[in-house]
């Protein structure tokens, strides 16, 4: 498998794994730092740099992974949309601005209505 192509296609999932690994390492470092001293003043920086940064990276990893899933789903809907247009089950977008044209809804371009007949 072409590693460059794979990385380009799956950059978000690779990034998600890197964030999760980084988050786990940060949590471990934070734990080791906190458990290494009884002085609360020395423990506080580890809570931030280890605990909170670790949580942040874990959340970022989850964001990247879930957004990759959503993008995949969007692309599948693209394929279905194209197939419906090609098989004449969905009118191609027209320039006249009929109901086929996609209206804006909350700033998001929404799809055309279709009747699967």
């Amino acid at each position, binding site marked *: 498998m072409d590693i460059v192509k794979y990385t380009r296609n799956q950059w978000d999932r690779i990034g998600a794994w890197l964030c999760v690994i980084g988050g786990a390492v940060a949590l471990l470092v934070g734990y080791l730092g906190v458990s290494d001293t009884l002085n609360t003043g020395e423990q506080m920086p580890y809570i931030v740099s280890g605990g*909170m940064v670790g949580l*942040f990276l874990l959340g970022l990893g989850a964001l990247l992974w879930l957004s990759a899933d959503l993008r995949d789903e969007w692309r599948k809907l693209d394929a279905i*949309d194209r197939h419906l247009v090609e098989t004449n089950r969905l009118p191609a977008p027209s320039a006249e601005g009929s109901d086929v044209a996609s209206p804006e809804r909350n700033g998001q371009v*929404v799809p055309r209505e279709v009747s699967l*007949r």
Partner: protein
Amino acid sequence: MSATHPVGVAPSPWTAGQRLVLAVLLVVGVGGLLAGYTGTSGTLRVGHQVVWIDLAGAALLVSGAGVILFLTAGRRAIGQRRLGLFGNVVEGGAAAALATGVAAGDLVSAPTMTKYHRADCSFVAGKAGVVAASAAGHEQAGRRPCGVCLPGGDA
């Protein structure tokens, strides 16, 4: 990346504004965490560190809220698009049934089909050679009831 999405449809579930909001909130989170670390590591007095811990915690919550908003917006956009593509299958099937002259309550099938359906079932929409018959007639022809529209069931 080439634009493989259909004309008139956004290339991704998110608008540029939603991406910008996420980026801003993530930057706020990173900035808060950096400030929190710098503040707590600059002193050993817990009373002074608590403020920075609070700041870092608030920044973490803000960035978490951004993540949740972003994912929710994407999920909502996909839901709207799916509804637009598949939401009116039933209406389409009913219109097709009426166009063929079959009454809405009839049980129908086609010669090439192995199951019989209600006339407004989407599985017979657009099928050629659809004929109506009683349930017994379809059963005698070796057809079984559709598992989706349940022609032998209630209503």
